[in-house]
């Protein structure tokens, strides 16, 4: 006898449950965790390095990196920051299980800020919650101004957007208004910081924003 059984269950519910466990653990230890996403070459590692250099006297920072080689992580470890490599084996994104499994490799109660560098990709990472508090999306000028139109899910899910490599604007036909309009439709009022890791342009505003978030977290935790 054929029957239809209603289910209505999110297909990524198993991932979301693990993400919720990670979030509870982070909250218990009073750590603000951020999920840094961008295309390959968009400037994830550069932004992370520059952010650490500016903040590590005031904020206790740890870094997890989803990658296939520890190259980026070695640069970060040289700053004296605790790091953990999540070897993604070529996977297209980090998922909640990978991050949860890597939590014991860092002493969380000794951190204020956990930076998780996701796999370079504007599609897949948008779909998988990690348990982090904030999604940081980095776009960059050489990628073109059409990215919010081509990868709407990534920009829709962002909590803050950095537009990196602003120093290259004069060499590129990058229409900042067109870019920002796409973002505004997808994610009204999204915090937006045009920056350049090379020149340092715009970095102070981003650091102030992040410092505020860490301070809010610490006062709660």
């Amino acid at each position, binding site marked *: 006898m054929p*029957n239809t059984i*209603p289910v209505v*269950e999110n*297909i990524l519910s198993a991932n979301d449950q693990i993400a919720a466990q990670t979030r509870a653990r982070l909250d218990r230890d009073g750590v603000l965790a951020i999920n840094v996403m961008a295309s390959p070459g968009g400037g994830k590692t550069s932004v992370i390095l520059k952010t650490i250099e500016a903040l590590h006297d005031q904020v206790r920072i740890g870094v997890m990196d989803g990658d296939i080689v520890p190259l980026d992580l070695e640069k970060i470890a040289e700053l004296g920051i605790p790091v953990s490599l999540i070897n993604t084996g070529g996977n297209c994104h980090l998922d909640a299980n990978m991050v949860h499994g890597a939590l014991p490799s860092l002493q969380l109660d000794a951190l204020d800020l956990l930076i998780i560098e996701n796999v370079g990709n504007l599609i897949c990472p948008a*779909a998988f919650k990690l348990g982090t508090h904030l999604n940081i999306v980095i776009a960059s000028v050489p990628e073109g101004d059409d990215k919010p139109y081509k990868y709407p899910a990534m920009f829709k899910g962002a909590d803050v957007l950095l537009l990196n490599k602003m120093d290259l604007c004069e060499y590129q036909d990058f229409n900042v208004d067109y870019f920002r309009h*796409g973002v505004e*439709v997808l994610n009204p009022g999204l915090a937006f910081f045009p920056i350049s890791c090379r020149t340092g342009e715009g970095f102070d505003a981003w650091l102030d924003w992040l410092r505020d978030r860490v301070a809010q977290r610490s006062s709660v935790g």
Partner: protein
Amino acid sequence: MHELGVTQSLLDIALHHGRQAGAARINELNLVVGELSSIVDDSVQFYWDMLSEGTIAQGARLNFKRVPAELHCHDCAHRFPLNHQEYICPKCGSANLTVSGGEEFFLESIDVDLDET
């Protein structure tokens, strides 16, 4: 690209609900997939055929109900599909838009046989 893991989750959910209902066979899965979910139907079906082998869901058909992402114009209330090129209202030319829908990704129901006959 990540359809293998997603398909395994889908199978786990379908089997769980099938067993709970006392199903002898799962014949069809009815999925709701938003346009903004990065999932390729053919790829899920491909992995499904491999992963479901030997389970009560072996050979089940996957029905994908695709949900478009829509733009909503705040000036003239026109609704139209996201076109991935420009976000401008085709009716009144307004740029005062917001997006809704398209992020759905769930198993809505399963069609099962409750006994072997």
